[in-house]
């Protein structure tokens, strides 16, 4: 399957490097996407269980998002560098 895909990519005219850049960002976004999904879901759960702690949970959630999101952004920057 993978070899076939390589064969198909070899037939594509134009800049194949563009597809590689797209793959770098696309693959790099999978993990952080799942991570942010879990993170916000759990944060909403916590806020629903304990609405009085919502402020603290929200701050921590944004912090967590910032750390996870950095990974996706590294992929984005890398797609320009390669």
């Amino acid at each position, binding site marked *: 399957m993978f070899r076939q895909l390589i064969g198909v990519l070899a037939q*594509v005219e134009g800049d194949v490097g563009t597809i590689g850049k797209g793959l770098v960002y696309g693959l790099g976004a999978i993990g952080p996407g799942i991570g942010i999904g879990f993170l916000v879901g759990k944060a909403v759960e916590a806020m629903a269980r304990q609405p009085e702690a919502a*402020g603290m949970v929200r701050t921590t959630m944004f*912090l967590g998002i910032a750390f996870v999101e950095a990974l996706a*952004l*590294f992929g984005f920057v890398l797609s320009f560098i390669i």
Partner: protein
Amino acid sequence: MGALVGLLSFTKPPEGFEAPGTEIFETHCVIGSGDYCVNRASLLMILASVIVVALFLIAFRRPKLVPTGIQNAMESVVEFVRNGIALEVMGHDGLPWVPFLTTMFMFIFVNNIFEILPLIHFPTTSRMAIPPVLALLAYFLFIGAGIKAQGFRFFKESLFPPGVPTALYVLVTPIEFVSTFLVRPVTLTVRLLANMVAGHLILTIFFLGSAYLALQPATIPFAIPAFLLGVFLMTFEILVSVLQAYIFTILTAVYVGLAIHPEH
């Protein structure tokens, strides 16, 4: 597989349309020439500082007991930074840091919001000039605050966290060193820079693309949704501008807070 080839042929841009790349972030010299000159981005940075100073001066030069207009808006900003960032993250020790954090927040926010302001349309934080300086400022500030609060113990506590079995320091100390003293300024920089680069690129691509599609009568049905999605992305970029300013400020507060509160 034939279908895949057909699908991939769509990835080629149509004839005559040049998708914008990173060259849209290059600006020309306005004053002077060579490598060290004042270009449009530098002028915008100066404008951003002037706007921030002017906003605070106008709002708080003659403060009224019952705030109106701009004083109201700026007081809500200060209150947001005080309650939402300083008190939330650093506790009561964070109150002396509120002026610095507010200035930082407003400066990043104004530089970000340039992305969607008419006639400017260029986020100055998308060039590798402002984010590293701000990140290094935060870096030296949290190291300085740690030294001031704990003395040399700051380095000992952050490199050799207490409560870890002695043998594990072989593993813990390099990780702590990299994550505290090397990765922090890099991630602060890249997070802000990449967000603004991505936003500016995607807005440019959407508006250039919809303008290109609108040239031919046959492709006008595609131009309209592309333009509408571009307008929607513009509102999304307002959210991103606020959020990135908030995240940069809150991370600075977290780093300083960790430095002045030793982990027992």
